[in-house]
C-alpha cells in the first residue's frame, strides 16, 4: 500500500535569474490525494510542467514508479500514465465531446495510417471499442447526451468535466489537476470534490492537485505540500499545515503570524 507513485528529488527549474522551482523533494504515495498549494507565482504550474515534460529541469530527478521521467518527451510521459488538466480549460474546442475523449485514447489504439485507409476488420473493431469506452467515460462524468456537441458550446462546468474525461481516457495511473474548481460556485465545487474522491476510490488513480480553494484542499487532501518562491516550505496532513506558522506567513504576511 505504501508504494510511491511519484517522487522528485532536488528538482530545480530556473528561468534566467528566477528560480521558479528550487530543489523540491516530494514523494507521493500511490492512490493518495496530494495537494500542492502556495501563493500566486509560487512555482506550482512550473512544477507540473516539469513533471509532464514540457520544461526540462536544470537539476534533480523525477521518478514515476521508479522510472526516471527527466528527458522524456511530453507524449511519452503521457503514454506512461500521467494525464493532466489545465487551469484555464484547454479542450479541442472545435471538435465534439466524443472526439475529445477519443483523442485521449490515442496511444491505446494501434491503427496505422495504412490500416485506416484499408479499414481492416481489426481497425473497425478497435474503433467500435474505442467509441464504447468513450461513451462509458461520458456517462461516468455525467455528460451523456452531449457527445455530439462541439466542445466550445458546452457550459463551463461541463467543459471542466470533459477535460477530466479526456484525461481519464488515457487510462492514467496518475492525474494532475490544475485548479479544477476555479470559477465554480460553492455547489459545483462540492460536486467536483466528491468527483475527485470518486476518481481515487473507484478508478484507483493517484491524484496530484493544485488548488487555491482552501476548503477543497483541506477537505480532500491526505498530504499537502506548500511552495513559496519555488521552495517547499512545509509538508504534512491538512491539520499540520493549518497550524504551520511558516505557511500562514507565506499566505498572509509576517504581521498575521505575530497576531496569531
Amino acid at each position: 500500500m505504501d508504494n510511491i507513485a511519484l517522487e522528485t528529488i532536488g528538482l530545480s527549474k530556473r528561468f534566467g535569474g528566477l528560480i521558479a522551482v528550487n530543489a523540491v523533494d516530494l514523494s507521493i504515495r500511490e492512490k493518495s490525494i496530494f495537494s500542492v498549494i502556495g501563493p500566486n507565482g509560487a512555482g506550482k504550474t512550473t512544477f507540473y510542467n516539469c513533471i509532464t515534460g514540457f520544461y526540462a529541469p536544470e537539476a534533480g530527478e523525477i521518478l514515476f514508479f521508479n522510472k526516471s521521467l527527466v528527458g522524456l518527451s511530453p507524449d511519452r510521459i503521457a503514454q506512461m500514465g500521467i494525464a493532466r488538466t489545465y487551469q484555464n480549460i484547454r479542450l479541442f474546442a472545435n471538435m465534439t465531446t466524443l472526439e475529445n475523449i477519443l483523442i485521449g485514447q490515442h496511444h491505446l489504439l494501434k491503427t496505422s495510417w495504412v490500416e485506416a485507409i484499408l479499414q481492416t476488420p481489426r481497425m473497425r473493431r478497435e474503433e467500435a471499442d474505442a467509441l464504447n469506452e468513450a461513451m462509458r467515460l461520458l456517462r461516468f462524468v455525467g455528460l451523456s447526451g452531449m457527445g455530439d456537441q462541439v466542445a466550445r458550446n458546452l457550459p463551463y462546468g461541463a467543459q471542466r468535466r470533459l477535460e477530466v474525461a479526456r484525461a481519464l481516457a488515457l487510462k492514467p495511473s496518475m492525474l494532475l489537476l490544475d485548479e479544477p474548481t476555479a470559477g465554480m460556485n460553492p455547489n459545483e465545487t462540492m460536486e467536483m470534490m466528491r468527483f475527485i474522491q470518486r476518481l481515487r476510490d473507484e478508478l484507483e488513480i493517484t491524484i496530484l492537485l493544485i488548488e487555491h480553494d482552501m476548503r477543497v484542499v483541506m477537505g480532500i487532501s491526505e498530504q499537502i505540500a506548500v511552495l513559496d518562491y519555488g521552495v517547499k516550505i512545509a509538508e504534512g496532513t491538512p491539520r499540520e499545515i493549518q497550524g504551520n506558522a511558516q505557511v500562514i506567513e507565506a499566505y498572509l504576511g509576517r504581521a498575521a503570524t505575530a497576531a496569531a
Partner: protein
Amino acid sequence: MTRHIRNGINAGIIFGIVTIFLFMIGFTTTISDLLGQLLRNGSSIAVMGFTPGIFDLLVFLFFIGMWAGISGAKKTPDKIDTWGTVLLSSGIAGLLHGILVGGLALLVGSLLQAGVTMTVYFAQLLPDAIHLFLIGLNATSAGSFYVIFFLITGLIGGVVARTIRYGSWRQNLTAWSKNKWQAFTAWPQYQRIRHNKLNLFVVYGLLILIVFLLPQVLGQYWNYTVGTVGIYVLLGLGLNIVVGLAGMLDLGYVAFFAIGAYTVALLTAPAPHHLMWNFWVTVPIGILLAAFAGIVLGIPVLRLRGDYLAIVTLGFGQIIAVLLHSDELTAFTGGPRGVAAVGGPSLFGISLGTPEGFVYLILLAVILVIFVTIRLRNSRVGRAWEAIREDETVARAMGINTWSHKLLAFAIGASFAGLGGVIFASRNQFTGPEDYNLMVSFNVLASVIVGGMGSIPGVIGGAFTLKGLPEVLRELENYRVLAFGALLVVMMLIRPEGLLPTSRRKMEIKELHDPDGKEAGETPGGKS
C-alpha cells in the same frame, strides 16, 4: 437615433467610394456592355427613352443604390426598427452616396468640358466612358441627377430591407417549407428508400454514371477547363490535409506539384534524358518522390509553428522555382525552356491523351484522393491531426507524437500534389518553370480557405470558385484579379469559416438510434 444616423453615414461613404472606384477603373463601361448583351442581346434600340448603354448602366447603379440603402438600414439587435428610423438611415446612406458620386460627376464633367485629358492620370477615363457616366447630360444636371437617383434607390433599399426583415411572409415561408419537408420525410416511400441500402447504391450509381458520361458531351474546351479545376481539386485536397486538418501553414506547396510534374516529364520525354518510360510507371514514382520531398523538408522544419513554418515553406517553394529556372541545371531539368513532348497515358494500346481521357483520369484520381482523405480523417490518425491543429501543446500532453503525425500529414499532402503534378505535366505534354510559381501555392491555399478549412466539399467548391469561375467569366478578364481579391476579403468578413465548412461527425446519436448496434450501456464508473 444617433446609431441610425451613424449607420447611414457609414454605408453612404462606403458605397460612395465603391461606386467612384468602379467608375475610375472603367468597370461602369464594362458592366453596361455586359448587361446589354445579357438583357437585350446587344440590340441598340432605345429603352424607356434612354440610350441602351445608359439604361444598362442605370440598371446596375439601381441595384448598387438599393444595396447602399439596405446596408445603411442595419438591423438593431433584439429590436424591431420602426419605418421612421429605417428610412432615416437608408435615406442618409442614399443621400451621401448620391452626393459623393454626383460630386464626382460634376468634377469630371466640368473637366471634360474644359478640355482636360484625364486619361493621362486615369487610364480608364476615356471621353466615352465619361459621357456614359454623365448619362448624356451636362456636368451640373448629371451631378444633381445622381444625388436624387441614389436618394431614391437608397430609400427603396430601406423599404426592401424592412419588408424582408419583419414581413410576416418570412415566418410563413419558413413554416411552410418546414411542414413540407417533414411531410416529405415522413412519406413511407421516402423512408423506405432512405433506409434501404440497395436504393442508395442505385442513386449513387446513377450519379457516378452521369459524372462519367459528362465528358462525352462537354466538348474540348469545357473538358480542358473541368480538367484544370480537377487538378486544383487534387492540390486543394492535399493542402487541406496539411492546412485544414493538421493546421500547418504551408506556402511552398507548389514545390511538390513541380516535383510530380518534372518526374513524369523527365522520365517520359525524349529530351533531355531520352528515357521514354511508360506513363503508368512514372505515376507511383512521381507520387513517392513528392512524398519523400515532403519528409525531407518536414524533418528539419516541423518543429517550427505558425508564421515561422509559413516562411520556411515559402522559401522552399522559391528554392524549387529557382532551381527549375537555373541555367546550370539545363542538362538535367531542361532549364528555362522546360521539357517538351511529355508522355501521355495509354491503355491496351489506346491513347488516353485526349481532354476527355484526362478528365476520366483526373476524376479517378480525385475520387481516390477523397476516399483516402475520408478514411484517414475518420480514424485515429485524422483525430490526432485535428487535435494538433486545435492545440498542439495539449495534443502532446494527451500522448500524441505530434512530430510523426505532422510529418505524415506533410508526406500525404505532398503525395497528392505529386499525383496532381504528374497528371498536369502529362496533360499539357509540356512542363516549364513558369507553371510552378508562387501564385499556384496561393491559389490552392485560397481555395482551401474560401471553401472551408478541412472540408472536402469545401475544397471542391473552392477550386470551382477560384479556378472555374474565372473561366466562365472570360468577359471580365481584366477584373479577374480584382474580383479574386475582393472575393477573399468579402469571404473572410462575412463567412470566415468558408463556403462549405465541415460539419462534425455525429457519433453518439448514431449509436443511440442504431437498432443493430449492441447495447452500449455497462455499469457506469466501473474500473476498466
